[in-house]
């Protein structure tokens, strides 16, 4: 079965091409690019908010995009159970829009950081990680200046208690100071996932490894 997916493009998005390419490469079906100024979404199985610097990351990362015209439609889709994946800037937008709890603060080192990290699958039962093994450690690049996940102690406890931490930075590779080494989290219902690293840049041998594929394959399996 093929998956209908779409990638939302905001002014300043810059990994939309990477994501469109990865989705087509892995799912075999051409994803749609969705323009931020639209107010409706087509029928989709997966909506991706991709990486980049929407609105230049001005004010707060993701803040302006989160209040954009397309967002009500995305909130509605999330309510209906459509899978929503936010990568990097997409994760920041989901937090600002209230679809995920918490915020992504400045990296603890205060610098933008682009490097390969190791990710540990903290919950392999989610729609976004099911093709990995529980506890599996995989390679993935990060590239961000604000990826330092922060939330209040109660929310953190809930996230941990409900298995909503999907991915963690492993083996001392936390690049940004995130609480509990959090790299990716889910909403309560489990259909919205946000993560800072870029699995879409780790899908072909020439990328150095193909460890990111399983993330997309997980969604593919989940919606099948």
């Amino acid at each position, binding site marked *: 079965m093929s998956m209908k997916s779409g990638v939302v493009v905001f002014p300043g998005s810059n990994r939309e091409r990477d994501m469109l390419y990865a989705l087509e490469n892995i799912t075999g079906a051409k994803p749609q690019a969705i323009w931020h100024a639209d107010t409706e979404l087509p029928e989709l199985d997966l909506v991706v908010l991709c990486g980049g610097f929407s609105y230049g990351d001005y*004010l707060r990362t993701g*803040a302006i995009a989160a*209040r954009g015209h397309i967002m009500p439609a995305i909130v509605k889709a999330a309510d209906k159970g459509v899978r929503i994946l936010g990568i990097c800037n997409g994760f920041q937008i989901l937090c600002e829009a209230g679809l995920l709890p918490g*915020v992504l*603060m*400045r*990296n*603890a080192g*205060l610098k933008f950081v682009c490097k390969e990290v190791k990710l540990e699958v903290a919950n392999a039962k989610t729609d976004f990680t099911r093709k990995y093994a529980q506890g599996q450690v995989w390679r993935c690049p990060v590239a961000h200046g604000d990826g330092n996940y*922060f939330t209040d102690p109660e929310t953190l406890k809930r996230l941990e208690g409900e298995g909503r931490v999907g991915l963690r930075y492993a083996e001392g590779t936390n690049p940004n100071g995130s609480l509990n080494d959090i790299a990716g989290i889910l909403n309560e219902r489990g259909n919205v996932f946000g993560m800072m690293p870029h699995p879409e840049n780790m899908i072909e041998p020439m990328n150095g490894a193909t460890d990111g594929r399983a993330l997309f394959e997980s969604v593919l399996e989940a919606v099948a």
Partner: protein
Amino acid sequence: MKARIKVTLKNGVLDPQGKAIEGALGSLGFSGVASVRQGKLFEVELDETDPAKAKAALEEMSKKLLANTVIENYAVELDEK
């Protein structure tokens, strides 16, 4: 009408920039700095001339966009004329 909106981090919210500045001030030889917190300051020029209305609009802007009320507080100040 001119106005200022101050946006500051709530108590207890991590402030990596403030922390880094504390450290930097220390290494520049400034002692006795107990803490630094970094916030934002918006200088806004409005067409509105009625202070009450202006204030209401600025509060709205702060809530809807300028501050992330999960982690930030804001305060609106109008320039007296």
